[in-house]
């Protein structure tokens, strides 16, 4: 089983969250699904009574308790909530319980039935095991018995614990894969958010690299010293003149406009829209627009005096792993890998744009070799 670093990162975020109501209800639902309950006495199932009129939570549970005056256990959710508040258990321990519950679900035979309190017992047992397994110190079983508000005796708690260990075959290990699988409903929203954040940060980094590049190419273009090395490609596309207003330009590049046909040898706006679309699965269009507008503003303000540049397409990535690679490369973009990476990614992500990519890589490489050569000369 493989898991991405995104999943791992989302797990890290999740485990720092405080215990919340949705966790409790999910735990309760999972516990419910572990084992079926046989109605305690056949009298009760003769005729189903409609549920009581909806009231606020407290009075409903009270009602239940009163009506079944015998040994009807409290609602599972309430039971779990009480355990949490008494034991002050934290998210990592609490949610590891889920792993054991799910493991148990596959271990217990499907035709087994429990009594009313079985689910409570199962949950408590799993929680105790999780607490003892994960924490440096844990409440003793006599404390756990107290936390049940008298529902279970210490002897019962001890038996539950031992029996559960038998079912789990004494294997209490929890792997990352276990956690990622069992907690996926909670991790999904975190993952999306992380993805978005990283795309934004990439965008920022990208933009700073771009401004650096344009600065370099500006120097190349204008200083006669570099003429010898300069390639025809490096003539950085004076095809847009800056008399078009910035928002207009942006709009066109984002919406695949006709401007593309004007500039055949030059970056086609379809490129940029491709990238944008690729990432638009998660990010809404508006945020992208905002972001790109911000960038064009930034970009053009910086370069306006030269009047000869057009924005390079925004390169967005939806894969988290690629993100980190790129950012790494950006940090020390003096390495050859930087170019390799660029060209490779171009191949992977955008086969139709090979032309452009190689052109662009060539372009950067050109500038770059220029820089290093210059550096060497100076050195």
């Amino acid at each position, binding site marked *: 089983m493989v898991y991405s670093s995104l999943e791992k990162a989302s797990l890290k975020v999740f485990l720092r969250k405080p215990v919340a109501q949705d966790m409790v209800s999910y735990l309760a639902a999972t516990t419910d699904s572990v084992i079926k309950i046989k109605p305690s006495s056949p009298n009760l199932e003769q005729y189903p009574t409609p549920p009581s009129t909806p009231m606020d939570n407290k009075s409903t549970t009270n009602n239940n308790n009163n009506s079944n005056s015998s040994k009807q256990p409290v609602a599972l959710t309430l039971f779990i909530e009480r355990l949490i508040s008494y034991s002050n258990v934290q998210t990592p321990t609490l949610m590891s319980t889920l792993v054991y519950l799910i493991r148990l679900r596959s271990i217990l*035979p499907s035709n087994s039935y429990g009594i009313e309190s079985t689910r409570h017992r199962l949950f408590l047992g799993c929680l105790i095991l999780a607490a003892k397994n994960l924490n*440096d110190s*844990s409440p003793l079983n*006599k404390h756990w018995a107290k936390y049940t508000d008298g529902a279970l005796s210490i002897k019962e708690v*001890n*038996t539950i*614990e031992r029996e559960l260990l038998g079912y789990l075959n*004494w294997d209490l290990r929890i792997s990352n894969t276990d956690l990622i699988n069992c907690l996926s409903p909670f991790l999904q929203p975190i993952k999306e958010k992380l993805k978005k954040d990283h795309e934004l940060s990439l965008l920022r980094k990208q933009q700073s690299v771009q401004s650096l590049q344009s600065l370099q190419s500006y120097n190349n273009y204008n200083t006669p010293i570099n003429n010898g090395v300069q390639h025809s490609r490096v003539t950085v596309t004076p095809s847009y003149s800056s008399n078009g207003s910035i928002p207009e330009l942006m709009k066109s590049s984002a919406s695949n406009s006709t401007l593309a046909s004007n500039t055949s040898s030059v970056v086609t706006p379809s490129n940029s829209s491709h990238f944008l679309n690729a990432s638009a699965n998660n990010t809404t269009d508006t945020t992208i627009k905002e972001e790109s507008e911000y960038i064009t503003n930034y970009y053009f303000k910086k370069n306006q005096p030269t009047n000869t540049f057009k924005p390079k397409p925004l390169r967005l990535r939806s894969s988290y792993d690629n993100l980190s690679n790129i950012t790494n490369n950006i940090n020390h973009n003096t390495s050859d890998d930087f170019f390799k990476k660029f060209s490779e990614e171009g191949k992977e992500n955008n086969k139709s744009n090979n032309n452009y990519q190689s052109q662009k890589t060539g372009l950067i490489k050109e500038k770059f070799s220029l820089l290093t050569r210059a550096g060497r000369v100076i050195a």
Partner: protein
Amino acid sequence: MTEVVSLSGPEQHDDESTLKVSSNYSKDTKVGEGTYAVVYVGVQKSSHRKIAIKEIKTGGFKDGLDMSAIREMKYLQELRHVNIIELIDIYSEHNGLNLILEYLPYDLEMLIKDKSIIFTPANIKSWMLMTLRGLHHCHRNFILHRDLKPNNLLLSPQGVLKIADFGLARSLGAPNEELTSNVVTRWYRAPELLFGSKHYTGAIDIWSVGVIFAELMLRTPYLPGANDMDQLIVTFRALGSPTEANWTNVSKLPGYNKINIYPPPTRQELRNRFSAATESTLDLICSMLMLDPLKRCTTTEALLSKYFVESPRATDPKSLPKIVPKNK
């Protein structure tokens, strides 16, 4: 056993499997008894392999399963290394938990106490090497042993040293997590633990190894404190008192007090104390017994130290001294 029914209904396959497992091993003679476990020698019937059975006393499960039992089983399941004891199986019987472990007849403490055996520098190097290798495997898996002492370093009939007793072990998790400072047998307890630090690292295990190292050279406990207070005094008398100068932020530790200030030992004093030690031996001991845990060496640094490179070569485990059974 009404609870069995309440949990799982009529099926009781659990009991069957327990019986099957326990019938695979024979429990023969009792060889030792600790505070929380009794150890028996037995045989694995399927392979005729000699094994040790650690039966954990649970007091009839009065307080549920002991934390240390869970710890031991958890970490031994995870760790596999020549220098760490092998956990073969686990089963529960009547009211106890049984850990089936590989059979290791001696421990280092027995050897140290047996004055008829002479330790050569090469022998000591061999034991240190095996201890550090085992510990390195724990630490690179982010597991702290927290109870290293000669008594817990067991020796196989072939002379291979294996770290045992993971009852106090724990994994090193988030840096803001609080750990209990009441760990490690007193004589082998690092100064940060004596000061009640709630955040510590593998450096506490390195300290223990350092003390064991010294004990192997001296053939007598190096820092035998009579109680926790005395332990501080004994430790600092031997190694100097910590100050803000040699251990930044030491005064912020919860149990810090500066009643006795002892000067750090000079190199010559150490040379006199460890008369058989070479300079690189002293270097390694000193770097393992640095008061400031941040300055203490790691297992990697220790294993790469000059001590293990210079002559004499560590003795082959097979030719290490062994205890000759006297009574039998």
